[in-house]
């Protein structure tokens, strides 16, 4: 090879290590370019408000004036001393745990029913899923009218069974929270039904055949074949329901009762909203938000740990 062609080769074909490095850099840049919009928007609309909220929680601010007054952690102390906030947190936990259990039990029950060969099965599946498509505002208004003491269908339904002593669905402080929780269950059960339906259809029929041969009855098949097989879906469905119930209860409570009567349906989100935008105590509301975020993160972390541990056992 001549000296000229050797130098041409040197220009046109750089060493392999340098080529790999350049390619990696270009891929890295391209990857950055693709995720940049999401990261920028996430930082602007999630991370920044979170940090800003944490800072504002250390001040007294009415959200209207241009000055904030430093109070340190006093807002957190007020939150722990506030009986309404403690009640709101308690109601939030009752709400979240209650609807999670009922939604999943009903969802699995419906899925088991609608997994069988039934006439009109498609219709029933659609009917069960339909409420999922409505917004919580629409569902809240609908059920407010159903529960209405003068015009509501709920009381008329009870009349059919000869019951004249109507409960105060949304007026009795001992009952109102459960009436609102039922609306959440009614709306979302169809969604969980679909999750469980998909899981049930993935269970190999050979396992049921083997169970039949071993003399298993319906309950034993369900307990030792169905449940272990769909356990990841159960965990996922429970996690979705739980975290959603903690942070997605505002709309339905606001529309139906706005925390009343006597704060019996007050949940953390409605109380935080009222404190920030009605009472103009933005600093205090931010402190309560931080406490709620911490509690929800804790619940999520505990659940994730349990899920992973469960998954480990399953794999073993």
């Amino acid at each position: 090879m001549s000296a000229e062609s050797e130098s041409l080769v040197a220009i046109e074909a750089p060493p392999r290590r340098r080529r790999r490095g350049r390619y990696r850099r270009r891929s890295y840049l391209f990857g950055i370019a693709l995720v940049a919009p999401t990261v920028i928007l996430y930082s602007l609309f999630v991370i920044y408000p979170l940090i800003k909220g944490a800072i504002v929680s250390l001040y007294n601010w009415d959200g209207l004036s241009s000055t904030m007054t430093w109070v340190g952690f006093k807002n957190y102390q007020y939150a722990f001393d506030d009986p309404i906030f403690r009640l709101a947190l308690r109601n939030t936990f009752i709400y979240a745990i209650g609807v999670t259990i009922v939604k999943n039990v009903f969802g699995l029950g419906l899925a088991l029913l609608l997994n069988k060969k039934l006439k009109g099965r498609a219709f029933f599946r659609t009917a069960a899923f339909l409420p999922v498509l409505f917004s919580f505002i629409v569902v809240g208004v609908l059920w407010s009218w159903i529960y209405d003491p003068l015009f509501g269908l709920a009381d008329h339904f009870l009349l059919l069974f000869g019951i004249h002593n109507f409960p105060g669905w949304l007026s009795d402080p001992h009952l109102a929270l459960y009436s609102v929780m039922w609306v959440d269950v009614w709306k979302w059960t169809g969604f969980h039904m679909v999750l469980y339906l998909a899981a049930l259809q993935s269970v190999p029929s050979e396992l049921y055949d083997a169970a039949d041969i071993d003399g298993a009855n319906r309950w034993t098949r369900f307990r030792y074949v169905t449940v272990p097989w769909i356990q990841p879906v159960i965990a996922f469905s429970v996690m979705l329901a739980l975290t959603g119930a903690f942070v997605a209860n505002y709309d339905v409570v606001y529309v139906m009762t706005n925390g009343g009567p006597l704060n019996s349906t007050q949940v953390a989100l409605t109380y935080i909203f009222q404190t920030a935008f009605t009472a103009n105590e933005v600093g205090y509301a931010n402190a309560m938000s931080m406490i709620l975020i911490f509690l929800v993160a804790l619940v999520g972390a505990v659940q994730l740990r349990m899920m992973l541990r469960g998954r480990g056992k399953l794999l073993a």
Partner: protein
Amino acid sequence: MNVMSISKSGFRLSAITALIAAIAVPIAVPIGAGVSGASSGSGCTLHVLGETRSSTAEATAWNTVFSDFKAQYHCTVTATWQGQFTGVPQLLNEANIAHQPVDLVTDTTENFNLASAGKLMDLTKLITPYETRFNPGTLQPFTVDGRVWGVPVEPETASVFFYNESLFNRLGLKAPTTFSELVHDSGVIKSKTKVQPFVEGGSDTWEWPMWYMATFAQTSGNKSVQNTASFLEGKYKFTSQASVQALKDLANFSKNGILSESSVGTSENGAIAAFLQGKAAMMFDGTWDLSTFRSGNPKFKIGVFMFPRVTSNPAVVAQSNGSSTEGLSIPSSIPKKDLPMADQLLEFITSPKEANKIFATVDPIVPTIKGTSSANDPLSATLSGYLPRTNGWLDWLWPTNVVTAIETAIEGVMFTHVSPKSAAQTVQNELDTLRAQQNYTFNFWSKWTAAQKAQVEPSKIPKIQVQN
């Protein structure tokens, strides 16, 4: 140049382009929205901000007034009508943050909050040339700590009992003037008909304080406004005899079977529907709903009566509460160059000729501005007669936390979940907490520094033309 180098440079170029686009797009979108939202055009332009108008007719009336203003003063007025009255402070805040000019803003129950936060201009001296055009007492709801922060731009409303006059006549009953007469009438209605004596939209909790205001007006010896100011200044306790008695009187409404706990689960719309369908004989509401009642075409004659006397003290009169449903204020953030024209616009809108155009679309039972016509309505004369005995809304003075505490206290007391004394104590505790934690002060003006006052007082009072 070979294929490899073309593809390398092309790849680099596309990566750089993608990176630039990725950074530019999230920044460009909000800027573009801001640019498109900014006011355009040269010359005088004023911006009005307020809640959604109650009807298309009302919105048209406002546009007509703005067109008249432009024809006379060569100044364009643009209006943003959005959301409910409770959301206006947030809208104003957002406009301030976005540096969007707001020259006039609607003002109702948030008057105190906005004024004490330094968001409103002190109008006391600005309206001096035309303040006599407002009917007596109609500026009082917009006056805090001796300063005027807004002017009424809609007719006066009041809280009254509406009743099925046709049913009452059929049963030989007269509109009650005392609580015992009300109990008697309710008993007759229950025993002789399937109609519920009374309905209340209790799930709309803002209605409950109206009840307390009516009983407290009597138990305080017709000094409810003064006592409320003293309470907020810390000189009067909510646990004192008059307040506790007012709550006890409310409890008697449910004890005597006039009001049932189902009211708590009924919305205002549900209550109106029940009343209009003849399922309930009476309801306690505001005159703002009179046009709603009429448009429901009830098959009976509607009558009104004042909240009945609950006290036996002959020196005390029954009173209703009320005010204009809407006021207009000048935000303290107004560009200084706009202040003279904004003041002129305020004067123009409240002139009788222009105000009539707006009033005609909102059922002017009781006008707030002299020289404007009231509705040609058989009830108008009766309701106008209540005006001298009408106090301003106390919930315009109470801070929001106290309003919420009072709503909860009334619900609790009325349906015997809570005793009147402990309900009163929860309200007092709420105010005490507010003072301790949020440094709440009622008479903020007298405690403000000269610098704070300078931010809301006009540095120069503009000369304006006063319409006849």
